[in-house]
């Protein structure tokens, strides 16, 4: 069985974001980088599937500058067999269509039985790339999964809907699935596996070799949201803060009445 998992490296969402000089995206300096949280669930599910079926080859794919290789190493340490790095220093300027065309271009003649992606990225949050890749490859896609099982070429899954409701769905492979938070419990790489990961294959392909498609979206401007008046901001010593809060709760709410 051949499995592909697609991951993205994103900044820690607790970071302070500044708009870059070109006004096209955030400034990349001074950020801590990590694996997109949704993709951690995708990697975990792919590794679990590999362990379940035994005979499987699991490739992790990531697009970006050399910096993203650090995140790929985490996926290798979690249990992926090989890394496919698409070297592109300007991937942040590409839209979901252009990104998906690169992944589909890579995957099209490799016969993957299953492709895993996160349901969206934490920084862009478009929730498009996974479905676009599947549509480009002409295979079914199941999205927003919170449960996944596989047996004999069939995927049985549950997708998350609004209000805590789930839909039970299934399809046959080859297929692509997008993973929602809570699908599983992503493992922490162990030290021996981190050491082993260093020896695993990691091949970089220059983006130009995959004949990238042009983006269909134009970015006009990137800016922090306008502050909408907003509420009162209190800072200071915790004991003083507690007193102030109690005073406010007494005056503005009936909570302490």
């Amino acid at each position: 069985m051949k499995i592909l998992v697609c991951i993205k490296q994103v900044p820690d969402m607790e970071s302070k974001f500044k708009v870059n000089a070109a006004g096209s995206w955030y400034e990349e300096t001074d950020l801590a980088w990590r694996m997109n949280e949704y993709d951690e669930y995708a990697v975990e599910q792919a590794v679990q599937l590999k362990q379940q079926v035994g005979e499987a080859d699991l490739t992790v794919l990531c697009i970006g500058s050399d910096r993203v290789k650090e995140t790929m190493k985490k996926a290798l340490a979690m249990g992926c067999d090989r890394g496919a790095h698409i070297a592109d220093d300007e991937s942040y300027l590409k839209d979901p269509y252009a990104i998906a065309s690169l992944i589909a271009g890579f995957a099209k003649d490799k016969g993957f039985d299953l492709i895993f992606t996160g349901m969206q990225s934490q920084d862009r949050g478009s929730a498009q790339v996974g479905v676009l890749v599947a549509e480009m490859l002409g295979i079914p896609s199941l999205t927003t999964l919170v449960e996944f099982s596989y047996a004999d070429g069939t995927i049985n899954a549950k997708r998350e809907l609004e209000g805590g409701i789930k839909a039970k769905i299934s399809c046959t492979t080859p297929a692509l699935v997008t993973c929602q938070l809570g699908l599983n419990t992503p493992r922490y790489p162990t030290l021996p596996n981190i050491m082993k990961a260093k020896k695993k294959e990691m091949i970089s392909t220059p983006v130009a070799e995959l004949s990238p498609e042009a983006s269909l979206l134009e970015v006009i401007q990137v800016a922090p949201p306008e502050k909408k008046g907003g509420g009162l901001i209190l800072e200071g010593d915790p004991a003083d803060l507690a007193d102030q809060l109690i005073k406010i709760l007494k005056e503005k709410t009936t909570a302490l009445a």
Partner: protein
Amino acid sequence: MKTLLVAEYRDSELLGTSGELINFASQLGAESAMFLVGSENSLPDYNGKLYLADIGQAGEFNPSQHKQLLLEVIEKEQPQMVVLPHSSYGWDLAPRIALALKAAQISEVVEIKDGNLVVPSCNSKLRRQVKAATDISVVTLQGGAFTPMEDPSGTPEVVKVEVVAGGDIQFGGYEEAESGGVDLSKAEIIVSAGRGIGKPENLAMIENLAKALKGEYGASRPVVDAEWADQSRQVGTTGQTVTPKLYVACGISGAIQHLAGMKKSEFVLAINTDKDAPIGEVADVLAVADLKQLVPILTEKLNAL
């Protein structure tokens, strides 16, 4: 400009997002027609042409089939924009349509600005103003961003769309949310724990504050996903929608899915170390502090009242 609005339907009922689609089209000053895979028993309040495909024939969840039906209607109507809710139905269907049309897709629109569309990024800390470079575009709307002031009214002119069976995904029914646990929608005071509590042991702190305020405790999605709190405590799009008199958000950054579940609270107090956290957008008071210090002191002082 002409838009085609895609309404959604689930489990024998039209979902309440069609009003937001209509309001968006009117804010754009655009003409509209509507598309629905649903049933005549539950039609949207809409004065316009409604292309209706029968859900009994097309299937409740059958995206490749819904895609084909929608593409036929697009062919007839020739809209410049196809608009869907950014929901589990919309974000699944939209890219399928976009690729078939080779159209730019703009996800989770929150605002129209200077004729361009604005979408959030990085947990709402940034906003991108974007424009489609294609003649037709596919757009999904963030839930609640275009809620109309008044409920729409009207009766649609129904045009039936023929369905031919097909599809590559089998739908096996719905699984309802687990019942039992606490009904937070009736609570008057809720104290919720977010990722900022750091470790499961700290949930006790939040429970104690909730007790001191004679309320219930809730949790954000990451806390539930980490199994620090039960799913029945989850506040947000995929959990419960709450409207208490007082909502205390402890260590919750304010992901849109969480805000959607609690922003109608009468009074919101947020405790967060990050002054710029998006929870500040809906908070009446934001106390910039480490909850692990502030929450125990606040609880103690409340208990001493």
